[in-house]
């Protein structure tokens, strides 16, 4: 394929991934590597490098819109970014020694897991139902957010568990070039008991920092090719900008089911390819 045609096709594919990912709230970053390796025959390591750059772009690009809503918690985010950046550095350092077949299988497992990631959720947590956690109070992490019934206070619990899960999320991000937003949300929402909206918006902020931690290592190692990173990043950014402008409708609910099916199929394909040594 000529570069001209290749750039256009990769831009198109990335645009669709970014569009559907942002419209469904499932994120498009996780499908970029399988898209590039399966549909375009790109080597896994180049695909990871390009995906990482696009992950930084979408996370940072969406931040301005998220901030205005007043949900994100900069203190919790910054504290947990120690864990995610450390994990990302370790993941990126280890990635060079993991055969691409191993990376493919791991990514496949992550894809299968993200099929079940919640895209939206009613907040049923009430501030009183949570046990108090002195560490959260001491650090001044408890805060409030604009809930469905006015300003609602929330508290933070099980910080060490959340911190550990964030380290794992960072490692996956550094190994596979994904944002691993689903694991981050899981850590804050389930482990630390934060409201779902606070978890998703704070996670979005953290994704960019996590990806930036490993991107430098990937750049120095020659994983980031400009001819590939360019159409991937521009495509994903343009697609997610458009997706964010459209309102969630019944059609986006059906699209979400379709996208989950695609993620599932890509996961199976990645594991199969990794297992049979095709990647």
């Amino acid at each position: 394929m000529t570069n001209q045609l290749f750039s256009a096709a990769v831009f198109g594919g990335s645009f669709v991934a970014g569009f559907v990912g942002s419209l469904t709230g499932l994120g498009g970053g996780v499908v970029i590597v399988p898209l590039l390796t399966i549909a375009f025959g790109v080597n896994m390591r180049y695909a990871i490098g390009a995906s990482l750059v696009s992950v930084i772009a979408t996370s940072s690009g969406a931040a301005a819109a998220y901030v205005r809503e007043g949900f994100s918690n900069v203190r919790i985010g910054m504290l947990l970014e120690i864990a995610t950046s450390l994990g990302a550095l370790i993941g990126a350092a280890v990635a060079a020694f993991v055969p691409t077949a191993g990376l493919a299988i791991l990514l496949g497992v992550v894809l299968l897991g993200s099929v079940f990631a919640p895209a939206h959720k009613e907040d049923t947590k009430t501030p009183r139902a949570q046990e108090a956690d002195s560490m959260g109070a001491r650090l001044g992490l408890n805060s409030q957010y604009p809930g469905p019934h006015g300003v609602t206070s929330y508290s933070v619990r099980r910080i060490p568990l959340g911190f550990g899960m964030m380290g794992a999320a960072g490692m996956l991000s550094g190994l596979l070039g994904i944002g691993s937003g689903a694991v981050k949300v899981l850590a804050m929402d389930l482990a630390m008991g934060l409201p779902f909206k606070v978890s998703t918006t704070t996670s979005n902020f953290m994704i960019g920092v996590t990806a930036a931690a490993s991107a430098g290592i990937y750049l120095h190692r020659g994983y980031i090719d400009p001819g590939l990173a360019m159409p991937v990043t521009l495509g994903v950014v343009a697609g997610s900008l458009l997706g964010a402008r459209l309102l969630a409708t019944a059609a986006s609910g059906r699209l979400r089911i379709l996208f989950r099916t695609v993620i599932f199929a890509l996961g199976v394909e990645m594991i199969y390819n990794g297992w049979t040594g095709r990647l």
Partner: protein
Amino acid sequence: MYSDQKMENQMGSLLRAGVILSCLIMLAGGILYVMRHGAEHEAYSIFHGEPAALESIGGILREVRAGSARGVIQLSVLTMIATPVMRVAFAVYGFSRQRQWVFTAISLTVLLLLAFGLSERG
């Protein structure tokens, strides 16, 4: 009082400016790249790494000065990576302005981790 919300608003604007700038540089480099190398054949199926000039900050800047399209795209990758780093640096400033020394130290730790990843030896 310099509130968390105000700090986050400024961070949000900073991030957006960084992404817009990076995408514009990337687009310019991309147009140049497709014009110059559009007819060549891509070869991404086998990993062979990048030329050394496109792997380091100094090398990329030299490529840009030499007018290389791939160098310009790689410069946009650098500014893209720098965008969240700037946000963390801004948090160091914001928390110190609030006299929240624990969080100033936490942000500084994250900044050091990021700097370690970006350092040439990685």
